[in-house]
C-alpha cells in the first residue's frame, strides 16, 4: 500500500471585488495622476475629499462635476501619534494632520512628515506623492512642509 498522503491545493481568497464607486473612484484615479479633486457643494463650499452625497440636498454627487484643488494647503489641526501601528504611513512616531488644500473649504486627513516642534496649525504643507501610484489614498505618501 502506498504511504502517499492525499493533498489538495487550498487558496485563501476573498472571491469578490468591490468598487469604490463613481466619486471615490474618480478621486482615487485623480491621485494616481497627481491631481486632487474636490466637490463644490450646494452651499458653495468645495469639499475635499469629495463626499458621495451632497450634505445640503442629499443628492448623489455627479463625478463629472468634480473640480481640481491644489496640492498645497494649510494645516487646520494636527496631533502627535506616539504609537505607530501596522498600516500607518510611518513606522515611527509621527503627526496626523487635517489639511485644507488651496481651493478647498474642508480638510483631508493624512500623515505629516515634520518634526513635532516644527508643526503648527496654519503652517503651509504640500503633498508628497508616492513614487508608485495605483489609485489609492496612499498615492499621497504624506504631507510635508511647503
Amino acid at each position, binding site marked *: 500500500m502506498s504511504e502517499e498522503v492525499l493533498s489538495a491545493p487550498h487558496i485563501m481568497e476573498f472571491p469578490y471585488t468591490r468598487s*469604490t464607486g463613481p466619486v*471615490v473612484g474618480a*478621486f*482615487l484615479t485623480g491621485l494616481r495622476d497627481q491631481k486632487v479633486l474636490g466637490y463644490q457643494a450646494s452651499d458653495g463650499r468645495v*469639499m475635499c*475629499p469629495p*463626499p458621495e452625497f451632497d*450634505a445640503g440636498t442629499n443628492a448623489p454627487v455627479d463625478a463629472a462635476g468634480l473640480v481640481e484643488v491644489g496640492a498645497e494647503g494649510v494645516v*487646520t*489641526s*494636527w*496631533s*502627535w*501619534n*506616539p*504609537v505607530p*501601528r*501596522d*498600516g*500607518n*504611513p510611518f513606522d515611527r512616531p509621527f503627526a*496626523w494632520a*487635517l*489639511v485644507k488644500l488651496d481651493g478647498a473649504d*474642508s*480638510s*483631508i*486627513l*493624512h*500623515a505629516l512628515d515634520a518634526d*513635532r516642534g516644527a508643526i503648527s*496649525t496654519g503652517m503651509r504643507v504640500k503633498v508628497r506623492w508616492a513614487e508608485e501610484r495605483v489609485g*489609492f*489614498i*496612499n498615492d499621497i505618501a504624506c504631507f510635508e512642509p511647503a
Partner: protein
Amino acid sequence: MRDVAIVSFAQHSQRREDSRNEIEILLPVIRDALAPIGLKTQDMGFTVSGSTDYLAGQAFAFVSALDAVGPWPPISESHVEMDGAFALYEAWVRLQHGDIDTALVYSFGKSSPGDVGRVLALQLEPYLLGPLWPDAVSLAALQARALLDSGKATEKDFARVVARSRRNARSNPFAQLQGDVDEAALLEEPLYADPFRLHDLPPVTDGAACIILAAGDRARELSDNPVWIKGIDHRIDLQAPGSRDLTVSPSTKLAAEKVGIPADVDLAEIHAPFSSQELILIEALGLDESKTAINPSGGALAANAVMVAGLQRFGEAFNRIQAGDGKNAVVHATGGPCLQQNLVAVLEAGK
C-alpha cells in the same frame, strides 16, 4: 408615546479580565439585573444587545454572547454593532409597538486583549480613512487641538474635566481611575498624543452592563421607583472628520432639542471618552455646570468598556435618581470618530 421606564440595572467593569471571557463576564450581570424584579429571560418581550465583534476578532461573536441570556426556548432578539445605549433606543422603539411590556438590553466589551485604538480604526470610512489606520486617540487629539486653537477651551479646562472625573469616581466601585488629583499637577505631566496628556485618555476597561425596560403599568408593578425615559433621540454628523467643525457637536445639539432638556436638570451622565469631548458636549447640551452635576460617576474617563460606557451612563443616572441624588437627568452616548453620532435622553423620577 407609550411611557417607558428603566426598572433595573446591573454592571461590571474592571481594568483587565484575565480569566473570564465575555459570556462569563456577562452572565452574572444579567442575573443581577433580573433578580430585583423577579423575572427570567423568558419573561422578556424583547432582548437586544450592543457590542462589536471586532473586539473579539470573530464574526458573529455577539451570537455566542446570547449564551449568557439563555435563548431557549427561542426568544425575540436583536443586536446593534454599537454601544448598548443605541440598543436601548431600539428596545424603546420596540416597546412603542405596544404588544410587549418588557425588554432586556445588554452590552459587553473586552478590550484588554487587543489594541482598542487600532480596532476602532475599523469603523472608519474604508477608502480614504481606513487604509491609513488612524487610531481613536489620534483622531480625538485632532479634535482637541481644534478646540484649543478655537480659543473655546484651554489645557486647564481639560485638566479640570479630568480632576472632576477622578474626584467623582471615588464613589464608583466600577471605576478604574479615581482619586484626588491636583489640576496644576496634571498640567505638569508630559504631552503624550500632543495635545493630549495621558490622563486626557480613557482607561482600557473590560465590562458589561444590563438594563431592564418596562412600559406603563408593568413598570409600576415591577418597581416601586421606576425611572422614566421622558425623551430619547439620536442624530449623526458628517462622516469625514475634516468636513465638519470639530469644536461643536451639531448632532448632540439637535438630539437635545428634540428631547427637550429641562432647565432644572439635576445631573448629567455624558459619554465623553476624552477630556476635550466633555467640554464640547456640555456646550452642545446647553448645560450649566453650576446647576447640573456633570458625570457624578466619573464618566468614561474613569471607566471605558468599549460599547458599554454609553449604556452605563443610563444605568448610573438611574442609580442616582433612585438614590434620591436628583429628580431628573440628561444622558448622552456617542459612537464613531470625534463624536460622530450622538444619543441624548432625559430621565425622570416618578410613579
